[in-house]
């Protein structure tokens, strides 16, 4: 069943236009499917002989399900026991009609040949449904390890649930599969909860009547995704925010002293770079701020990947500085500039917007004094940087030890945190540590 749209999970075979034994040309319509109010013709992905119809008329199946087999060599090789045949072992020849080149995005174009040398990715795609892949991704399970009971060895939802119940599940997410382990010897258990589907995953926005002078426009993809993400993020995490004021005098001094050197190196070190550098170091001491609540477990992330919110006007995207704690100040600075400029040019790679473990947003660049940012799904905290501006501050003169009124460059920082895992005192300690780091910024960073 080809993917006929982003939000389409299944389709009904309404009519087979070709019968078993018929010769089909590439791109010739061979069946019709219907989904909601649309009928669609599905063309053959390749020429050959239709050797098996797997899904009968009237049946509704998930996207990715094998609908029929076409033998490209015209040898009528009818496999009579498809349900027991693992896909990689199929005799060479028949091509599965699952995802059709003409109907899917380039990344999904794989007309499966039943080669033994199938890539893991292809196996994953053809041997499971989207629901199963989602569960697998959430629980860090390699589908290749599961024996599927579905057609041609496909892994069904029951299979993966049973697998997790047995032993294989680690409860970790994919990037940290090997590193995940239970702290304090607490066994890690994970069960997919139906709550996820009913409340945490589905977002329906209520509709309102349109008035005569109004304009009604559909949300574009980015807006739609952002809207859904925000609703879900707020539903899941109980948000609390704490604030701290941070002085940028030392950082300003370093910037002034280093300016000519950085210019010579073509380095771009913004205030945000200083903050990202300091955050990445401080996070090491506050694992709960760099974690995520997952079921009844807490996953403490093994990496420090900083999501950096970039305003696209309109829209917003959050590219990720991976392993920021291993980068120097200049490295982080250059990376941020590079990601931001490519974000605006819409040239980010998919893995550059994934895997954030903590996020920094910078409402201050547009003059906002302080923000109350929403914690991105899958993380436990987000830092908002307010506008960095000259303020009147009472400081103590170090030589005379008297209090004086001074003009200092300062900014209000806000930390939004998931109160399930981060306590108020944790947040306060984190912000104090960050303040201390930024106000006595190491010159060799």
């Amino acid at each position, binding site marked *: 069943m080809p993917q*006929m*749209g*982003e*939000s*389409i999970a299944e389709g009904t075979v*309404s*009519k087979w236009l070709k019968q078993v034994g018929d010769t089909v040309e590439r*791109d*010739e*319509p061979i069946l*019709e499917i*219907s*989904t*909601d*109010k*649309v*009928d*669609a*013709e*599905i*063309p053959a992905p390749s020429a050959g002989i239709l050797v098996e119809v797997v899904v009968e008329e009237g049946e509704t199946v998930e996207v990715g399900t094998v609908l029929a087999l076409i033998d490209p060599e015209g040898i009528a090789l009818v496999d009579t026991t498809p349900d027991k045949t693992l896909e990689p072992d199929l005799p060479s020849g028949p091509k599965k009609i699952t995802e059709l080149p*003409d*109907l*899917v*995005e380039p990344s999904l174009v794989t007309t499966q040949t039943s080669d033994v040398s199938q890539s893991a990715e292809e196996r994953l795609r053809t041997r499971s449904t989207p629901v199963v892949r989602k569960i697998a991704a959430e629980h860090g399970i390699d589908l290749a390890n599961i024996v599927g009971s579905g057609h041609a060895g496909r892994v069904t939802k029951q299979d993966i649930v049973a697998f997790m119940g047995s032993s294989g599940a680690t409860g970790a997410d994919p990037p940290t599969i090997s590193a995940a382990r239970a702290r304090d010897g607490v066994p890690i258990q994970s069960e997919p909860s139906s709550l996820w589907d009913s409340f945490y995953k589905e977002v*329906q926005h209520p*509709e309102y*009547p*349109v*008035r*005569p002078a*109004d304009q*009604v*426009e*559909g949300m574009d993809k980015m807006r739609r995704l952002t809207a859904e993400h925000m609703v879900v993020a707020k539903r899941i995490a109980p948000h609390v925010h704490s604030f701290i004021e941070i002085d940028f005098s030392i950082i300003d001094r370093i910037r002034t002293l280093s300016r000519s050197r950085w210019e010579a190196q073509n380095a771009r070190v913004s205030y945000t770079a200083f903050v990202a550098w300091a955050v990445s170091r401080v996070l090491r001491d506050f694992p709960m701020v760099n974690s995520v609540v997952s079921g009844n477990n807490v996953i403490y992330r093994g990496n420090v990947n900083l999501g950096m919110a970039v305003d696209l006007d309109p829209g917003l995207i959050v590219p990720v500085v991976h392993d920021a704690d291993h980068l120097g100040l200049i490295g982080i600075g250059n990376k941020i500039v590079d990601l931001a400029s490519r974000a605006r040019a*819409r040239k980010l790679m998919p893995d550059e917007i994934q895997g954030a473990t903590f996020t920094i947003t910078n409402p201050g660049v547009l003059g906002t004094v302080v923000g109350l940012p929403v914690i991105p799904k899958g993380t436990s905290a987000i830092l908002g940087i307010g506008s960095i501006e000259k303020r009147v501050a009472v400081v103590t003169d170090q030589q005379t030890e008297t209090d004086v009124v001074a003009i200092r460059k300062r900014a209000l920082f806000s930390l939004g945190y998931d109160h399930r895992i981060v306590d108020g005192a944790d947040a306060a300690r984190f912000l104090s540590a960050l303040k201390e780091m930024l106000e006595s910024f190491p010159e060799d960073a």
Partner: protein
Amino acid sequence: MNSPHRSLAVRELGTIEYSEALELQAHLIRERREATIPDTILLLEHPHVITLGSSSDYAHVLLDAGELEKRGIALFEVGRGGDVTYHGPGQLVVYPIMDLKPDRKDLHRYLRDLESVLIKVACSFGVQANRDPSGTGVFTELGKLGAIGVRVSSGWITSHGIALNVSTKLDFFKTIVPCGIRDCGVTSLERELQAPVCMAEVKECMVESFKQVFSL
């Protein structure tokens, strides 16, 4: 982002028989697939006809064959999505023959776009129409104003499309269960406004809305 430049051809066909429109669409689908014509929308009205989409239930046609014939209502089973519907004079039917490749290959998006077109047209006459989460189409408080049923042929070429009740005699809907929704009333622009509406003006708005929604 990088939408290809598209143009839109509009064909006004007046009132044409349902069978004739089917043939014309089949022909235009081939031409569109071969790219010998641009994206095209057909604006027309049908004589009284009841059509059954692929998910139709015959029980939703409330008259038997004899009764239909007596009333001069034709009956067609057609390869579009959706349940049973009625077309007739005073209803603006729009059949877009468009290539959804490369940037619009999403059936749900296409349906939502067609709804947007209908909402915009209604809006320009001061009628508030909305989507309804329970089904495709656009609705006012009085009932269904516009219906949608489409087909996507090999190569992502669309046909069939939308039907907007402008001055439709709504009694004819009593011969069917519109789109299988038993509780659903039907309405028209004239019923909403309690005033005559000029079909030519509706067509103009329709073309305009199409261009806006599909960035043509």
